Structure formats: C-alpha cells, structure tokens
C-alpha cells in the first residue's frame, strides 16, 4: 500500500469522477428493479431501493459522484415512478413531501457515508505511516557510524517513498559543505542536478525547511542551536507531497538528525578519548624520559667535574673509574635515545620491514656484539635447532629486538644466570624462545610486560623506562608476527617470538 496518495493526474477530474460506471450501473439496476417491484411494493417503497444504492456508493465512488447520483436518483424516481408518471410534476402533496424527504435523505446519507469512508482511508494511511516511522526509528537506532545512518535513511526514502535524497554535513568550521554528499564518491557525477545550493544555504541558515515548489525539499538536520547538516529530498514531481506527507518527511528528517547527532557525538568522544590517552602517554613519557635522562647526566656531570678538579697526575685509579662511569652513562643515554626513536617510528606506523632470509645465529651474534654490554658470568646457549636455523625478517630490526631481549636478560637476572635460545617451526611460524633461569615475572605482571612504560616491581629499582619489550612487540608485529611471555617451570622468564615464515610459491 502506498504511503502517499497519488498526485491527481491531468487536472482534478480523475479524482472527483472515480466510480461513475459503478454509479450508473447501480442506478440502472435499481431503476430496473423498481419497474419489476412496483406492482408488488408500490412506487413509494422504490425510494428505499434508491437510498440503499446511494448509501453504498461511497465505497467505490468519489463524493461528487455520490452527490450527483443522489440528485439523479431523486429525479429518476420522480420522473419514472411518482404519479403522474413520465413528468417531473408531482400530483399529491404527500408525494411532494415524500420527494423532498427522499432528496434530503439521499443527499445527507451519501454525503455522510462518503465522508466516513474518506476518514477511514485517511486513518489507515496514517496508521501505515506510523508503522513506517516506527520501523525507521527502530532501524536507525541500531546502525552505527555516520555513513551507515545516511545509507539507511537514503534506502528508506527510496524503497518506501520512492524519493531520492542526499545528505550534506557541516565541515570543520561549521559551514555546510555542499560540494559532496555523504557516502558519495568525490569523482561521482552529481545525481541531484535539481539541487540548488542557494536554497540549501537558505535552509541551513534559517534552520527551517525550504521547498522549491516543485516537490523538492531542504530540511535542516539538527536542533535549533546546532544544525549538523542538511537533508535534500527530490520528489521528482511525481508525487503529491503536502499536508501530512510533509509532516512525515519532517519527522523523518528529525529522526535522521537525531541519529546523525548521536553518531557525530560518538565519533567526537572517540577522538577525545584518543587525544586523552595520547596526552596521558606523553605525560608519562616526559616524566620517565626526564628522569631517565637526568640520572646518567648526573653521573656525567659529577664525574667530569670531579675529573676537572683533581690534577692530571693525582690518583690515576680514581680518574679511570670516573671516566668509566662517564662512558657507561653516555651509553645509557644513547640506548634511551635509540629506544625513543624506535618507539616514535613504530607509533607513526612508518616501519616497513625489508624481509630477508638470515641465519638466526648470525643475527643473535650481531645483537650480542651490538649490545656491547658486560654479561658478567651469565651464559647464552643456543639450542641445536637454532644453530643452522634460518628466519625471514628485517635483519637490522630483528637485531634490535634480540638486543633488547638480551639487555633485559643481563639487567634482570642475577650473575651466573643462563639463557637458552631455541627455535621450532610451528604452523607457518618460526617460534624463537628465550628461556632463562632467573627469578621470572609475577603471573599478574605477565600480561602487562609488553605495555609501553610498564616496569615490573622487580624493575622499578633498575634503570630503563619500560620501552624495550614494547618496542620488541611493535617490531615483531610489523613483521606480521607476535610475541608472548610466560614463566618457565621452576622459575625463570620465557619469551617466545613468532615470526611468519616466507610462503613458498
């Protein structure tokens, strides 16, 4: 069932003249019946037959036809049945009164029933519209995302109302962007050639719906205070959109506006949350970094000023000790700066691993060399598999990962600890495991191990700012792999790197 009344076609006649054949045949049939029944019932009862016909007419015919039929039936009755017959004159006073009463009854009866019928059909139209609106409101409450809301609204307008539409949103400065409808490709030929920017802007500025008089409508989307966009509806001249139909469109526009506002707000909230999170991180970063910078700088400043104070010949042992501390502090600063650089490259998503095949042992060796750190009495052992194993990875990035893992091993395990490095191939991945026999990590701290700036309770007292493993995670993930942590049975930390193997073609 359509939600609109069809627009009356050529002029007004078609709408007003519906049901003429039915009216004519009904009158004909009653007249024929009258001739047959007259001898038995008498001419007065025939008026009742005419009345029945008139009252039943509005179910098919328009009001004008009903009233015309009432008039014609009165005349027919008078002409054909009331004596003197075949004249329009009426002989007895009683018949005159009867004729007037009939005329009134037919007229009023026809009029009333046809009004009733119209009311009923208006009611059912309204009911259908209510159901439609309800369905639309429910559907639009469920979709998420600005584009989805717009898509759904356009679908509904097209499917149910045969109306094409476009929705325009405001740009960043709160001006209406009429150059591009939401969900439309930038190079798309504008479908709405009837769209008039002037009317759209007028609608937007006045915050009121505007019609161009040709069944094209512009609705502001939003509340009185803030208009977030504009709905353009093109009736293409085929439909009659007035009165209640316009109200329907206005209600639809309100619903679309609510959904859009909701989605825009959600998007803004998400942005704010991200901004808040990154503000939090940069605050932690600043705190951590300034602390981490200050400690080695204190060492350097202290040692070097001490060196300046003591004469060049005094206490060579103290001199070399101070210099050694200075060098260690400088290395620490360098490591921190490299971590920060790696982190910022990861965060910017600029990391593009250049994958090569390489021996795992070769990269581990390079990492050990680059670490340049005293492992004291700690030992590193390679499993048998690892000695000749080849991995697919960006060599310099993976060396950085290994270096960080080894650095952690050296920093967080007691002297004479041992690290076993082994590897196995599992479902398309090379799983490289690092297991030590140190104190391990508390179970509840394991999931946090790769978080940026996380430092375990054991690490709080040590140097470092919680970047190492989160860099490892970032690099491994940039390779399409993953990293996990666990505890070895009997204590000790287990780190496993899963790197994808090259697909053999």
């Amino acid at each position: 069932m359509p939600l609109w009344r069809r627009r009356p076609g050529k002029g007004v006649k078609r709408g007003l003249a519906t049901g003429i054949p039915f009216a004519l045949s009904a009158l004909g049939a009653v007249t024929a019946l009258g001739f047959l029944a007259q001898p038995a019932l008498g001419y007065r009862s025939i008026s009742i037959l005419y009345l029945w016909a008139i009252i039943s007419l509005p179910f098919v015919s328009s009001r004008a036809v009903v009233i015309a039929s009432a008039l014609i039936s009165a005349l027919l009755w008078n002409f054909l049945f009331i004596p003197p017959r075949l004249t329009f004159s009426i002989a007895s006073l009683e018949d005159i009164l009867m004729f007037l009463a009939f005329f009134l009854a037919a007229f009023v009866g026809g009029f009333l029933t046809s009004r009733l019928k119209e009311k009923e059909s208006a009611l059912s139209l309204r009911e259908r519209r209510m159901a439609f609106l309800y369905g639309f409101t429910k559907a639009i409450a469920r979709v998420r995302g600005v584009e989805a809301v717009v898509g759904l609204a356009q679908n509904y307008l097209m499917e149910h109302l045969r109306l094409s539409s476009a929705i325009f949103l405001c740009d960043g400065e709160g001006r209406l962007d009429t150059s591009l409808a939401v969900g439309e490709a930038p190079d798309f030929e504008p479908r709405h050639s009837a769209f008039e920017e002037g009317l759209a802007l007028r609608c937007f500025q006045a915050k009121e719906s505007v019609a161009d008089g040709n069944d094209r409508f512009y609705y502001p989307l939003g509340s009185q205070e803030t208009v977030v966009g504009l709905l353009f509806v093109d009736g293409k001249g085929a439909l009659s959109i007035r009165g209640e139909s316009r109200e329907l469109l206005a209600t639809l526009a309100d619903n679309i506006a609510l959904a859009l506002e909701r989605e825009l707000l959600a998007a803004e909230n998400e942005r704010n949350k991200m901004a808040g999170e990154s503000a939090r991180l940069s605050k932690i970063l600043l705190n951590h970094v300034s602390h981490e910078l200050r400690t080695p700088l204190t060492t350097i400043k202290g040692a070097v000023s001490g060196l300046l104070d003591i004469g060049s010949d005094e206490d060579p042992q103290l001199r070399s000790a101070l210099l050694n501390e200075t060098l260690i502090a400088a290395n620490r600063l360098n490591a921190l700066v490299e971590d920060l650089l790696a982190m910022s490259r990861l965060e910017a998503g600029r990391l593009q691993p250049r994958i090569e095949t390489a021996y795992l042992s070769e990269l581990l060796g390079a990492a050990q060399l680059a670490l340049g750190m005293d492992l004291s009495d700690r030992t590193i052992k390679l499993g048998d598999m690892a000695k000749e194993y080849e991995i697919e990875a960006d060599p310099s990035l993976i060396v950085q990962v290994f270096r960080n893992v080894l650095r952690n091993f050296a920093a967080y395990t007691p002297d004479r600890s041992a690290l076993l490095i082994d590897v196995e191939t599992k479902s398309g991945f090379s799983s490289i495991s690092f297991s030590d026999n140190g104190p391990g990590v508390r179970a509840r701290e394991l999931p946090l191990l790769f978080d940026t700036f996380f430092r375990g309770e054991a690490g709080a007292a040590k140097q470092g700012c919680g970047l190492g493993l989160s860099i490892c995670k970032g690099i491994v993930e940039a390779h399409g792999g993953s990293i996990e942590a666990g505890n070895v049975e009997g204590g000790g930390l287990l780190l496993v790197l899963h790197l994808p193997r090259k697909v053999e073609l």
Partner: protein
Amino acid sequence: MTPVLVIDDDLQIRKLLRLYLEKNGFTVFEADSCAEGLRQFTGLKPGLVLLDLGLPDGDGREMLKAIRDRGDTPVIVVSVRDAEADIMDLLDAGADDYIIKPFGVGELVSRMNVALRHHTPKAVWGHPVQVGMLEIHMDSREVFRAGIEERLTPTEWSILEILVRNAGKIITRNQILREVWGPSMAQEYNNLRVYINQIRKKIEEEPSVPKVLITEPGVGYRLKLEL
C-alpha cells in the same frame, strides 16, 4: 701529518675531533656545510674526509659524488642509526666506511687508519695474517685454526680474500657479490649468506657468536683483523 677534512655542522663535535685527531697525528680542517667542504677539499687535497650526513645545505650522496669526481680520497661517512639503506647506497657509491653517531674516538681513529692503509696498499702478501688462533696464508691459500688446516672451497677462498684485503673495513654484500660472481649477481644475498656461514664454521672459534667475520646487519660484513 695526514690532513683530514671534517665536514660536520656541529661545532662541538668538530672541536672534539680536532682535539683528539691532532693528538693522534692528523692535521684537522673544518667545514660546516657541503659548499664549504667542497671548497676546502679542492684547495687542501686532504688525505681523508669525515663526512657527516646531516648537513644543512645538501645531501651526502651528492657530496660523496663530488669528492669521487675529484679522485679516490678515502671518505668515512658519519651518520645516525636507522639508515641502513642509505649507508649501503653510500658504501656502494664509493664511501670507504661508516661510523654511527655517537661513536668512540678510539674506534674512529682505528677506522681512519684502516681506510688510509687501504689507500696506500700494503701487501697482505708475503707473511701470514694472524688473529687469535687463526692464521691465514694468502700466498699459499692456506688457513689454519689452532694449528689445524681448514680446507676452503675456491669460492669461499675468493670471499675470504676480499675480506682479508679489506680487513677492518666494511664490505657491502653487493661489493662481494659483484667481485666474486659478477655484476649480474648483485642482490643475490642468499648465496653469499650461506657461504659466509660456511666460512665462519672454518675460521671462528664459536661460529654462532662470530668474533672475526662480523655481520653488519642489513649492510655487509667486516673482518675484524688487526693487521
């Protein structure tokens, strides 16, 4: 007194280098930009150039090309980390070595000495090259590890020869590939990788943690021999 041209825009680094290099027997000239560097280079004819890549007025590659156009003066590129691709390009384009900032001055001077020595070829021939338990006789093509002879295949020997000739200096993978297999084999890193692994098994004490044949990840190899 070898004249050295230091092209770096940081005053403090130039100052530090001047102090240390002059103490080590170099004459130091300073330039803070490409233009100034090139002007001094043409006038002074230095024995070695330290070229910083982060110069305000130009790109290191062009500077290197300009120097190479004027002769084969050794050039050591000074750069920050994370630029392996650039470093490899520069080495392939004729730079002699590179060093990562921040560096130790001791390491820098030994790299400079290596670069200078290769510039004035000193025979590795005639006497064995020795490092730790390893002994390499270039003339007779023999390698001894802890007194026991290791047999190298001809290809392994060609690679080792390149590395020994350039001992202490970085050699990019492309340089080795080009010299051993010809220009068409450049970029075929896989073969080279396997050969290097084989050589390591014959010359390293602990092949999984090489101390002599060092990998510079993503760039090339360096033989750590003090000749």
